[in-house]
């Protein structure tokens, strides 16, 4: 199952009860908001987790940080959890210096580590 991926749009893949979005390119604000709405809709249709892979993302500014936090807030309300995987060290350093925190978000070093967080976790 894949959400429609138009130009600049991030595809969302479903693996069982886990939704996976791999952001491979710089997002415009519009495509970040489209991802938020796709993920929230798909999570509402049934998911216990969302993994957002951001190793291809060169910068996270306050706008994208807010979008990621809101995705996590919506997923948490739907009884799931959101994991951000693969953040570049340079991005993490910059977020800390800016004073931004990704509230409500769990992080993992890689997509594989993120998926491992869901293994062994019984279904609802």
């Amino acid at each position, binding site marked *: 199952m894949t959400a429609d991926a138009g130009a600049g749009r991030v595809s969302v893949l479903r693996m069982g009860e886990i939704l996976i979005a791999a952001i491979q390119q*710089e997002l415009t604000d519009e495509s970040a908001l489209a991802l938020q709405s796709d993920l929230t809709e798909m999570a509402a249709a049934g998911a216990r987790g969302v993994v957002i892979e951001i190793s291809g993302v060169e*910068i*996270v*500014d306050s706008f994208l940080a807010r979008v990621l936090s809101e995705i996590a807030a919506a997923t948490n309300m739907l009884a799931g959890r959101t994991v951000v995987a693969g953040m570049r060290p*340079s991005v993490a*350093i*910059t977020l800390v210096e*800016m*004073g931004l925190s990704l509230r409500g978000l769990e992080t993992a070093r890689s997509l594989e580590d993120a998926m491992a967080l869901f293994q062994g976790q019984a279904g609802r």
Partner: protein
Amino acid sequence: MSLDEVTRLEIGSDVQIAGARQAVREAAVAAGFSLVEQTKIVTAASELARNTLVHGGGGHMELAVVENSGGRAIRLTFTDDGPGIPDVDAALSDGYSTGNGLGLGLGGARRLVQEFTIDSRPGGGTTVTAVAWSRTAQRVPR
């Protein structure tokens, strides 16, 4: 991009914010900035470009590589003819937001650069200048 050359980009849409980020990244790479230095100045540019668009109603960015005896820097100037910032100190404080961000845009951008100035008057538009010096970039002998 050579020294003292000023590149001017319009900031009128979110695609142009992405374009501004790309231009700043290319300039930072060419100037010899480290990866972390590149990431900081590009992130600051993204915050300031969005402010220009969202709060200033659009405007432009000027990008220049500057040098002095101490080293090399990227200077970004964002100008709009919008409503201006009524209280600059408040706008720089964390949590202040009139838009859709986290209220950390201006203050966050200021923490990512070494020099930061805001010139704004109510009704008179806003100019924000941010300068990031590189520790790694070598000054080019001329």
